[in-house]
């Protein structure tokens, strides 16, 4: 039997063990197939994809985010999924958001694999200490709780933040976290005005309220500070009481801070209730020498045991909704807040357009500057002006590429 080489490429190195286990099992069942797994840092991986897909030198099975895949689909660099896989994707195994993310128009190109879903992490010991019995349910409660949870040192500086907001950092994450806290108030980074047409969706009351919330947190209420540790690192070190992040942090805490007492909760509600869903699907490249083997491996990989490993061992949310994840929930109840089964809780996604990363990154740059600008705090006109200028830049990018719609 001829040897078939199959390469799996991904941008999430923490998932490599799951791929490797699936590869070992697949090779056992198909001794003539040799599977190699290559995962690198996400940004490097995206650059690698951009260089290798057009030159037909990419791996066979590719893990690609919905927000970046469209350009490859439109350029014909990633072919459609075969009929049986397309039928599997359209089945009840996946929800509508996941199906849409792996499709372009009415054609299915990939198999939804996992998602980055946001939820609120909170330290239960600190909550108990502050006399708080449960997580915040509304956005107002979120900030009120943070005020009770913050701790300052002898000089009045924030020693432990009440909530760790994303105030700085490279790239688009700052804008994404802003959007997650803005969405319940009715705002979004991009509003779809017509099919394929968008405009900035944050130059409004929701955007201004979210901006005010960040500035008040730093300069008025002093529940967060620019010169302390942030995000997962701060949470694991007990230097913040709350923060919003994806489910992978649970796996990280198991590794780095196994004694930490914490729970997770859905994102607090305001006018609406929901969280972000960033879908990552598996595709087969145009250059795959044996596409039928590649698709067979994709199908093999989406079996329940690997989906459970993906959640339980790594911490990413698997997208097959017909897989029983109770064994994982029993072991780590923190995962439950990422899979809220409530009809009012919306899993929303960012639009899959080629300019999105540029829009998010440039907005993030402006947000980072604004979060440092003391003069904006308590100045609604300045906040409005800052957001308006940012929205003009966003709309300018959309206009440049013919994606703008009033």
């Amino acid at each position: 039997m001829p040897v078939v080489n199959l390469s799996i490429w991904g941008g999430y190195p923490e998932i490599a063990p799951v791929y490797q286990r699936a590869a070992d099992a697949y090779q056992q069942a198909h001794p003539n197939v040799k599977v190699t797994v290559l995962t690198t840092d996400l940004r490097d991986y995206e650059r690698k994809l951009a260089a290798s897909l057009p030159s037909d030198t990419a791996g066979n099975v590719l893990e690609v985010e919905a927000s970046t895949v469209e350009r490859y689909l439109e350029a014909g660099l990633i072919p459609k999924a075969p009929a049986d896989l397309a039928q599997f994707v359209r089945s009840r195994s996946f929800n509508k958001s996941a199906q849409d993310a792996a499709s372009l128009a009415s054609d299915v190109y990939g198999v939804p694999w996992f998602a980055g879903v946001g939820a609120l992490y909170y330290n239960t010991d600190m909550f108990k200490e502050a006399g708080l019995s449960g997580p915040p349910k509304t956005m107002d409660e979120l900030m009120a709780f943070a005020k009770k949870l913050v701790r300052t040192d002898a000089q009045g500086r924030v020693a432990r933040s009440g909530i760790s907001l994303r105030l700085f950092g490279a790239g688009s994450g700052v804008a994404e976290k802003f959007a997650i806290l803005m969405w319940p108030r009715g705002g979004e980074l991009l509003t779809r005005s017509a099919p394929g047409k968008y405009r900035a969706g944050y130059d409004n009351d929701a955007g201004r309220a979210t901006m005010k919330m960040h500035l008040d947190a730093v300069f008025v209420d002093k529940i967060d500070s620019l010169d302390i540790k942030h995000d997962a690192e701060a949470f694991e070190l007990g230097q913040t009481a709350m923060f919003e992040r994806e489910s992978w942090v649970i796996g990280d805490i198991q590794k780095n801070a196994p004694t930490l007492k914490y729970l997770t909760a859905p994102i607090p509600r305001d006018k609406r209730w929901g969280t972000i869903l960033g879908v990552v699907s598996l595709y087969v490249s145009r250059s795959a020498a044996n596409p039928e083997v590649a698709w067979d491996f994709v199908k093999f990989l989406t079996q329940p045991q690997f989906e459970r490993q993906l959640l339980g061992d790594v911490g990413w949310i698997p997208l097959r909704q017909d897989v029983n994840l109770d064994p994982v929930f029993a072991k780590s109840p923190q995962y439950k807040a990422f899979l809220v089964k409530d009809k009012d809780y919306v899993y929303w996604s960012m639009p899959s357009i080629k300019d999105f990363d540029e829009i998010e990154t440039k907005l993030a740059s402006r947000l980072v500057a604004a979060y440092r600008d003391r003069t904006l705090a308590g100045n609604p006109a300045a906040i409005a002006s800052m957001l308006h200028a940012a929205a003009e830049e966003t709309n300018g990018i959309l206009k440049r590429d013919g994606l703008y719609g009033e």
Partner: protein
Amino acid sequence: MGSTASNGSKPRPLGRAQRKWRWPPPRVTAGHTPLLLGASRSTLARYGFCYLMLAFPALLFIVFRIVPIAETLRLSVLNWDLISATKPFVGLDNFRALLQDPNFLLALSNTTTFAAVTVTASVLLALLVALPLARRVRWEGLYQLFYFLPFVAPTVPEAVAWKWICDTRNGLLNYLLSLVGVGPVPWLIEPRATLWAVMIMSVWKTLGYNMVLFIVGLRAIPAEYTEAGLIDGAAGWRLFRHITLPLLMPTVLLITVISTISAYNVFTQVYVLASDIQGSPAGLARVLIYDIFENAFRFYRMGYASAEATIFFVIVLCLTLAQFRVLRSQTE
């Protein structure tokens, strides 16, 4: 200053005429057939090996330097996203858009500030350090190692160490400043302070390299000149100003040109110090290479990034030529 050198005639630095390339080459004498660029058969036979050895690096230079520059110039007038098969011609649109792009203008301003400050500071400080070390002081090697080590060490771990040094609450820099009554500076929080943090680190890193070049330049100055100056009563600052510095100008020119080119190419320390996820102002300390990198490999705007690279190339070329012109006129 009417002194003479030991052989009785006043030694003169080489003039432009003696150093200039001669073109066209001298006419060949009868019996020698010109073959290649005026070279005769016998010259070719004699220097064939040299031509061969020069041809290989020249080929590498063309392939890895000239061709990419030419390709960048070509891409700068196209619109290409790295993926599309088509690359529509857009004329000067990319250049026009750049001149209205706040990120590019910020990067240009930051890079120019960075280059002006770091080149001035690293040249002056290196000269200050090199002057005593050129006299072969005790522990000279140890001092040279101390200053040179940051230059040879990899930039990334150095930048990580500087991140700790620049920490607002627990950093060494703020501790040292507190000893002279200066309050905590948010080095990696405020964009302007971040640029200064990067500049301080860059001066610290390049100081040793410039110092070594200056030591070599200072030691190459014939002793007769300084001796003559001393006999004529010049000492200290006057000796340095009128004897040492003019003779050191070729070294100053070399160091200034190298430092300017290197300063405009700054990237790693900015990337590590000022764009990490924890505690730094992301793109606000952006420099040109960072901006080119972001446009090309994050936003996939290859034509736009190429236009930016073209402007960058022209700026560095003009600055280098200007430096050659200004400083060379002082060396002659």
